[in-house]
């Protein structure tokens, strides 16, 4: 499976309060959450994001609260993949659990700029900056996490497995 889109670029420590501010958490409807995604640090995001686009960030993306509403809002916005130098741990597991592809790749993050056209191959972990014609290799997922992603998320995996 591949994803392709233009890059949105953010810095260190993008927290879940700016991904989806708590004032909107009186709803858990994905489409309502997506309307406010990133608005406190980037008021152009919801106006310009298109299906397939990719978020590229520096260290500790998704730090802060456990709200699954954050990866849900990003996924519902049409974002196909988040690439960061590192992810905060709850955001990391929430993304895998809901089936939002995320990749850690510091090289890619240093060499992708806002608006660059980026392609990601999830099977090989290969990230290509099509605008600059540079390739990067992300760490592949461990087998267990690959199984979760292939099953379509944690619930589907556990249901299939019959909680053995």
């Amino acid at each position, binding site marked *: 499976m591949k994803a392709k889109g233009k890059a949105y670029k953010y810095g260190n*420590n993008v*927290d879940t*309060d*700016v991904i989806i*501010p*708590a*004032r909107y*958490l*009186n*709803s*858990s409807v994905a489409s309502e959450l997506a309307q406010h995604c990133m608005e*406190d*640090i980037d008021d152009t995001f919801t106006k310009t994001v298109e299906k397939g686009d990719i978020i590229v960030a520096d*260290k*500790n993306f998704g*730090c*802060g*609260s*456990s*709200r*699954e*509403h954050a*990866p*849900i809002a990003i996924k519902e916005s049409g974002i196909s993949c988040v690439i960061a130098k*590192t992810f*905060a*741990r*709850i955001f990391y*597991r*929430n993304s895998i*659990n*809901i089936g939002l592809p995320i990749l850690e790749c510091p090289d890619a993050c240093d060499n992708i700029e806002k608006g660059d056209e980026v392609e990601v191959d999830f099977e090989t972990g290969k990230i290509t900056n099509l605008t600059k014609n540079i390739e990067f290799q992300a760490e592949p997922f*461990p087998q*267990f*996490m690959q199984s979760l992603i292939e099953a379509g*998320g*944690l*619930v*589907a995996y*556990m*249901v299939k497995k019959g*909680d053995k």
Partner: protein
Amino acid sequence: MKMTMSQKLLASKAGLDSVKPGQLIMANVDLVLGNDITSPVAIAEFAKFGRKEVFDKEKIALVPDHFAPNKDIKAAEQCKCMRNFAHDYNITNYFEVGKMGIEHALLPEQGLVTAGDLVIGADSHTCTYGALGAFSTGVGSTDMACGMATGKAWFKVPTAVRFNLTGKFNENIGGKDLILHIIGMIGVDGVLYQSMEFTGPGIQNLTIDDRFTVANMAIEAGAKNGIFPVDDITLDYLKAHGKKVPQIFEADEDAVYEKVIEIDLSTIKSTVSFPSLPDNTKTPEQWGLVKIDQVVIGSCTNGRLSDLRKAAKILKGKTINSNVRCIILPATQQIWKEAMNEGLFEIFIDAGAIVSTPTCGPCLGGHMGILAEGERAVSTTNRNFVGRMGHVKSEVYLAGPEVAAASAVKGYLADPNEGDN
């Protein structure tokens, strides 16, 4: 065996003799927690299992605390969703308004967590219970749903950083100053994916409330969990509150830590996190004049009785500055009652503060004290991110209850150890 305290506890819950860092395990959990924001998403996911029952109705805790008492119609619908689920599935530990409190103060008080427990909660501050020698960690709603259905959760076994504590706090210094000092030193991703294990002779000088405050903010350094060894102070607390039998895990003598950081508690000063990250810490000589509009004393970090006593000691006979709204939120109904019976409310009200019913409310910009554009708050809560307490151009300064109370009187960020406080 070379295992840390966290690794030993995880191995036991996974039914394994030993585990190694990086190993992916499926473990049995002792408690699954959710609140009014995270539970509705989890309940929708739980439905996909098609189960008539949860894995154990005694081992699930549902607490409406974030936007409760209901702040608006949508919040009311979310609380209703959780209430209906609790009723339909006979959840024993559902805490309605009137019984509820801020979850991480409430659960230990109600004896629902003991030493040796493995707890997952769909709230990032679930790491609080590490104070009691439990492995507890925040997860998302999908993990909560699977936990409720199966009693299991997956974990990547973490490495650990050891914080060796010696010495004793000075006057008006406490757990909040310690954990802010640590986060300032190592950064908001200083222990990403790792355990923070606290050891050393200084631990005997930390009250159980100091430990709750420290463990509560482990997540603010990126940690998976923060954990304290079990001693007489822990066991006394568990005896007073506990319904469960504690199980004590200890780190092996040859346990491997990524790093050991030495901290002498007597060197810790009043510490405040300036906007907009918890690691942007400063001590009084670096504060300058920061005029404030609001003070919040409460939350899962600092809303316990000892925190209210510390604030009352400073506010007694004083008047809140006329430019400041001071909002005090005891974390549970029990704390509320005890604070009332001790006469703390009289001190607060005479000083010009207000006392709220328990709620997370202002901490996450929910309700009960939202900031307008350009306003500043000194708050005993745990996050000062952009827009955390209201307008995107408002500011939050994180502090302990002594600094918060002293600041409320002065009208600017103030050190309780300076001047006539």
